């Protein structure tokens, strides 16, 4: 099953199980540009699969209000770049409502979106913006790499009583992998060891997990045995899993596609430095995009997007020092 089909299956499963679950967003009734919501309108009707105008700011607020009053909306924002339009509602309303109301309100909202570069989509359709969200108390943030996690984490997100942002990756949508049917929920906040290794730990999420695994294969041929951890959930973050691995390897590389400066890699690196300074045989190395907008031109975009080469280089840097 493809990653996007797994998302689709998780949505259908949740809608079947719970009549409060509704799907909202632009073109969702037509399946959306990536077919994530294909077939849902046919099965559940257009009252639960709700096409919305191009009004991201308000539609996000509508989903929040709907969640506060009893529904379980799964809102799709077509590109994470447009989450910028909805950030006031997400940050100032959804994330704070439970807290500000002294616990009276709950916002069981899922915001599904997708990000990432590599598709020649230009600077406004290719960003990785999870950093904004991980800095916002009250939100949970999920970035699945595998189809099975895209489905399983989405199922958990829908069941969660808090606003959860699920960030998919456009370059993963048509990857094929085995996914159990029906979808099994994957708990939020639990990382997964994607490859065992002794020499160095690589923490990655979303598309970079595959790059890390390929980097690990490459490094294996050089005699370096890398452990790869797929963080899966950014908030809450499974720091224990990372520390456990680092306590064995003594070296850490953190890899994401977002711009390195101010990226979530800085948080992981800092937290690990703080907690395990004496275990580290080298400073944590961070892999992330250079500090530029995403260029359109193919060769430039390819140079821009961080991948296995940068991960290999970062791993080697942890080994020289």
């Amino acid at each position, binding site marked *: 099953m493809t990653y996007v089909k797994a998302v689709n299956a998780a949505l259908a499963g949740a809608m079947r199980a719970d009549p409060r679950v*509704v799907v909202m967003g632009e073109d969702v009734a037509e399946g959306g540009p990536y077919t994530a919501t294909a077939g849902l309108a046919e099965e559940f009707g257009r*009252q639960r699969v709700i096409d919305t*105008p191009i009004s991201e700011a308000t539609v996000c607020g*509508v989903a929040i*209000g*709907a969640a506060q009053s009893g*529904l379980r909306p799964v809102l799709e924002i077509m590109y994470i770049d447009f989450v910028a339009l909805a950030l006031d509602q997400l940050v100032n309303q959804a994330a704070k409502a*439970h807290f500000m*109301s002294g616990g009276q309100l709950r916002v069981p909202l899922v915001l599904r979106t997708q990000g990432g570069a590599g598709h020649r989509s230009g600077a406004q359709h290719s960003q990785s913006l999870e950093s904004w969200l991980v800095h916002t108390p009250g939100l949970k943030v999920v970035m699945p790499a595998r189809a099975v996690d895209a489905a399983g984490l989405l199922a958990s997100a829908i069941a*969660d009583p808090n606003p959860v942002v699920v960030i998919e990756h456009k370059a993963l949508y048509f990857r094929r992998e085995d996914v159990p049917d029906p979808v099994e929920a994957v708990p939020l906040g639990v990382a997964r060891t994607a490859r065992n290794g002794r020499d160095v730990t690589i923490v990655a999420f979303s598309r970079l997990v595959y790059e890390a695994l390929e980097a690990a294969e490459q490094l294996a041929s050089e005699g370096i045995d890398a452990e790869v951890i797929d963080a899966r959930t950014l908030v809450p973050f499974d720091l224990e899993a990372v520390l456990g691995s680092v306590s064995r390897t003594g070296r850490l590389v953190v890899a994401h596609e977002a711009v390195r400066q101010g990226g979530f890699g800085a948080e992981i690196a800092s937290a690990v430095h703080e907690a395990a300074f004496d275990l580290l045989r080298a400073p944590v190395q961070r892999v992330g995009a250079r500090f530029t907008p995403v260029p359109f031109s193919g060769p430039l975009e390819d140079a821009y997007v961080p991948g296995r080469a940068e991960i290999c280089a970062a791993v080697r840097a942890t080994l020289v020092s």
Partner: protein
Amino acid sequence: MTSRATRPHRLAAKDITLSRWRHGFKSRWGCQQNRGCADPADRGATNAVLGSTWACLRGADWAVSNPERASGPGATGEAVTALELLGIMWRIRFFEEEVPRLQRAGLARGLLHLSVGQEGVAAGTCAMLRRDDLLYTGHRGHGHAIAKGVPLRGLFAELMGRLDGVCRGLGGSMHIVDVEHGLMGATGVVGGNIPLAVGSAMTARLGAREQLTVVLFGDGAVQTGYFHESVNLAALWRLPLVFVCENNGFAEFTPRSAHTTVERVCDVVAPYGLARQTVDGSDVIAVREAFGVLAAAARGGEGPALLECLTYRLRGHYEGDAQKYRAAISQAEWRDRDPIARLRRRGVSEGWFTDEAAAVAEGAAKEAVDEAARLARESTAPPLELMERLVYAQLEPA
């Protein structure tokens, strides 16, 4: 005491006409530019299943659903007499007048936006609602909360950041929430409450609940994108929602004329075909009448409405505002603007209540406010650990 004026409209809820959920332009629009496409009317084809799809929700575990109707003033629209309206306005007035005293005493802190002069809107709208109707307000929301039945003590305590505050002291003056009384949200981001109200109305619509949502906001919010996007959505989905704009002519220190060429907020929504009316917000009876008509229609499935109340903010934008940007109002003018004085004069002259009864209502309100303020002072600060405990909701209700 029952008069024509005090019971102008029974807000009997009709069943929501589900088939009105619309996905095609009404035939009068024609559909020329969609030629060559699947008939947009097809989009409405699934309407037939809505009833059964949503029927299951009626009994479901809604976060907020309290079909029981409270009976006190401020909780039900069916029994609010003119005298009760007077009492509600007095409660708001005394509450708001107490706030600066608490501020001077260092007890109420932060950004405090009072509604003295605007009580007619709060009483004429919020007091007409049922307890389980949902209300959203903004930064100037004390009066709305009081009229909806939120306890005075919890309000005072909230302004003082105390544990007995309606939000346990975590929200503050701009963020009053009292789910039990249907006050679902107040926001300090101007216009940010409007989409939330659309969302609640959507829930009611999809659940076929007999529930009205009302959102109150100022004239400044009308220039936000939120307002327009929300009006469009509410009209598109024919939601049971009443937009209530308190047009006091100012946004902070700037008159409406510097923000827009459209003087009347009602005119802004004309393209959407919303039912709408502009009324004198200092005339609580007029507000109540107009609101009653619009609310009944919205509740009955006839779609959203907008009520614009022309009103006057007696005090500064917030407590501490020196108000250099406008001249003080004259005594004569205030006599005319003051919704309380006006209702009192009219109520006595129409024979709705006696002057003595009015004085008793005033005294009772004063006493209630004083007592609430006194009790609120006794509340303690919330414990520090509350902060981290309330960032995330737990799976099972805490």
